[in-house]
């Protein structure tokens, strides 16, 4: 008996959800390039900031002992806010992100700040991770106003359902 061939056509919707974990300068550039590029061609884009990724969405961009309790404030100070995100390698004690930004400007490539502003302009959804906020003693008020909501894993899965997920 001949069996009919079943072809499964996989149609994924145009949705991209990025888990921004590393908080590294170069990986943030990659994450925001993917986010803005996808949003520009009609994707619904979510960025879920977690752990080291929380550093780049703090309201205070400089080095500040943010958090509750001594240890949280200690880590908050060391993390240093958006102005101090390190390169994932060859950081040269913090000189590299500045050198990289200089090189990007010279070659007319978008800088990290320009990519973040573009993501906001393109209505990319920004979310923060509940668990790492608890560990570091940070609240929603400590973040930039564009952070829509604090999410746990279940809600993240709901929001990212049907699309692609990336861990950066």
């Amino acid at each position, binding site marked *: 008996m001949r069996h009919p061939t079943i072809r499964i056509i996989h149609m994924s919707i145009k949705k991209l959800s990025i888990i921004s974990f590393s908080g590294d300068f170069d990986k943030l550039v990659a994450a925001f390039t993917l986010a803005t590029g996808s949003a520009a061609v009609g994707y619904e884009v979510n960025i879920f900031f977690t752990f080291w990724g929380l550093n780049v969405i703090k309201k205070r961009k400089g080095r500040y002992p943010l958090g509750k309790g001594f240890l949280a404030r200690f880590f908050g100070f060391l993390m240093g806010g958006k102005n101090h995100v390190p390169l994932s390698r060859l950081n040269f004690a913090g000189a590299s992100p500045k050198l990289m930004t200089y090189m990007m400007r010279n070659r007319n490539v*978008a800088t990290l700040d320009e990519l973040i502003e*573009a993501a906001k302009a393109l209505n990319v959804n920004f979310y923060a991770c509940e668990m790492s906020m608890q560990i570091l003693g940070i609240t929603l008020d400590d973040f930039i106003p564009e952070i829509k909501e604090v999410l746990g894993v279940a809600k993240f899965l709901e929001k990212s359902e049907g699309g692609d997920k990336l861990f950066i």
Partner: protein
Amino acid sequence: MMTKILDITKEHCPMTFVKTKIELSKLQTGDKLEVFVTEGEPLENIPKSATEQGYTVLEITHIERDIHKILIRK
């Protein structure tokens, strides 16, 4: 009906189509955007994604060397 001009010949990925999308979303219905692009990725992708998102690509003209003009209407 306004026509705005956007020059992205000096931009690189992703700002080529990011800036185009941001300018397109600011237009009112009926307004037009003239985008100056270089050959390669921008010339191939911008008309396609503009059409996919419901905009109308009116014409694509070659200006000089590797520069082209794409006229898009909302």
